[in-house]
């Protein structure tokens, strides 16, 4: 399979994630879309590592996973707190701050 296809897939995944953030209301889903974008980036990194024949890209992928995990910790903490106050995880409900 041509190497470009991996990149196309990566781009598609990234786009799905980016669009998902815009269209979905549930904070958890939004968050998962972001994770999807990170993984799209990972895929690109790994692909390019293959193309460039060095390991830097793969190393990045591992770092990214760790960082993503940290993000999950922080993100869920925030979402849970909000849920406890509001009984809702809809991002559209959190719109008191505006204009």
């Amino acid at each position, binding site marked *: 399979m041509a190497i470009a296809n991996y990149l196309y897939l990566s781009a598609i995944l990234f786009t799905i994630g*980016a669009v998902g953030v*815009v*269209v979905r*209301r549930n904070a958890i889903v939004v968050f998962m879309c972001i994770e999807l974008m990170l993984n799209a980036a990972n895929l690109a990194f790994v692909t390019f590592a293959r193309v460039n024949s060095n390991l830097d890209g793969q190393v990045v992928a591992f770092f990214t996973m760790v960082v993503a995990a940290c993000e999950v910790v922080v993100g869920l903490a925030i979402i849970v707190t909000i849920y406890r106050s509001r009984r809702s995880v809809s991002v559209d409900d*959190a*719109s008191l*701050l505006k*204009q």
Partner: protein
Amino acid sequence: MTTSSNLLWLIALPLFSSAILILSGKRANSWGHVLATIVSASSFTIGVVEFFAMHGRSDANRAVTQKIFTWISVGSLNVDASLMLDQLSICFVLLITGVGTLIHVYSISYMSHDHDRRRFFAYLNFFIASMLLLVLGDSYLNLYVGWEGVGLASYLLIGFWNQKPAYATAAKKAFIANRIGDVGLSIAIMIAFATFGDVSFAGIKEHADEASSTQLTAIGLMLLLAACGKSAQFPLQSWLGDAMAGPTPVSALIHAATMVTAGVYLITRSNFIFDEAPIAQLMVLVVGGITLLFGAVIGMAKDDIKKALAASTMSQIGYMILATGLGPIGYAFAIMHLLTHGFFKASMFLGAGSVMHGMKDEVNMRKFGGIGKFMPFTALTFGLGYLAIIGVPPFSGFYSKDKIIETAFNAGGIKGIALGMATLLGAVITAFYMTRVVILTFFGNERWGHKDEPAESPALMLIPIGLLSIGSIAAGFIFSKGDGLVNWLQPVVNPLKEHHAEEFLPPIIVSLMTLVAVMIGLTVAILKYRGDQVAQAPEKVSVLVSAARRDLFQDEFNEAVFMRPGQSLIKILLNLDYILIDGLVRSVAATSLSAGVRLRTLQTGYVRSYALMMVIGALALVTTIWVVTA
């Protein structure tokens, strides 16, 4: 050229006296008028001393100068505060201080009931100082200082009783009409500097014949404009009638004898310009001719004795201006008429003041009548002045006016005939309206109604009138004896330069024509006003009379052409300023504000819309680069 250190004192004395009177306030109420009169008399004395000193010198050495200090010196422009007394200015110095002193004396009594008399004398002294500066300044710029100074004095004196709005308005009107003239003087000075690099009379005179005729014509026309403003000549004549709002001595001194004749002085002083600028000279003739008839026509219809005299002044100055337009010989005659007019018109104004004094400030001649009986001295002196102005020999007006008419006829060709006829017609009308004034005031039935009988004025008022009357009688004879004045002025106005034109008519014929003209006017007036009159002015009158009563619509004209469009323009500008110019500024602020308010709605509060904005931003960047690099 001789120098003298006395000239400054001529001006400084009255100036300081004026300042003292103003600054010391009420404390000077008791002695202010005395100081002012003494100072004026001192100036006169200095003038007389200077005159005799000058008379004793040879023609070439008669002029004296005094440099006081360097006034303005920037680049090539150097103007000294410097005075010059020559044959021309000494005439004025004597007239101003002489008549001025008499009027000071007169005013002591005339103004004795006014609690602001001190202020009045302060203004009078200020006027004397300014007028002396006007005639003594050795450059146009020094003259300009005096020129505006007398304007200010005139403003202050016309508005002396400015608690009456009409009087205050009259003062303002005079000042503004004068200022329009001053524009002319300013521009003339600017052109003179650009052309000659100098603004002094001597400097310009030296090079006058080198300049192009365009420049000289421009300077001449601008000087004429200045003269029109100051001397109430057409088309800037409208202020003089209203100026009669001032106390009568003011009318006599400023608006008859001296200040209003400054225009004649200016043109005479600038003879070296006008002699080289025929177009400007022609305009001088036109203005003089129009004004002499204009004033005369108005004079026929006025019932207010002071306004009638003012109209007459306008007309007489028209004669003088016309004379100055006639070239070198005309200057001397203009000055001669100016001097004789100074005497007889001042005496008549003071006489009018005396009548008003007797009639409790009434000025309407239709409410006079038969006053001669009660105020014989006033009537007599007024009568002498009357004979002088209409030009009955051997009174002074005859000599001076006759010369002007004669010279006008001699101007040659159609121009000469037209000018001659105009002056002659003027003589007819003058005789008519002056006769009318005399009859309505001193003869006929008494029409003052319930008022007390008028009594003769106090001696302090009558003595100055008497002295002036001597001038009315004798001045003309003295000046013209052996062409005295003409020869005296010769070094200044240089009449010999002119190659004598052929005489159009022999002098004796002209004199006879003049006399006939006077007789016609006089007779018509007597026929018209010999019977009893009524105190009311007739209402059904001819178009001409009603136009003359309204000063030939001069105010209506000014209002329609200048004032109202001016007011509309100001209104438009006020709106323009607010709506357009400031509106632009405000709209910048308003646009920013509304842009802010609008853009702020982008901040919806929804995370998703923020994310969308980021995506769109990123896509926009990609597209831009794509387009830029591709």
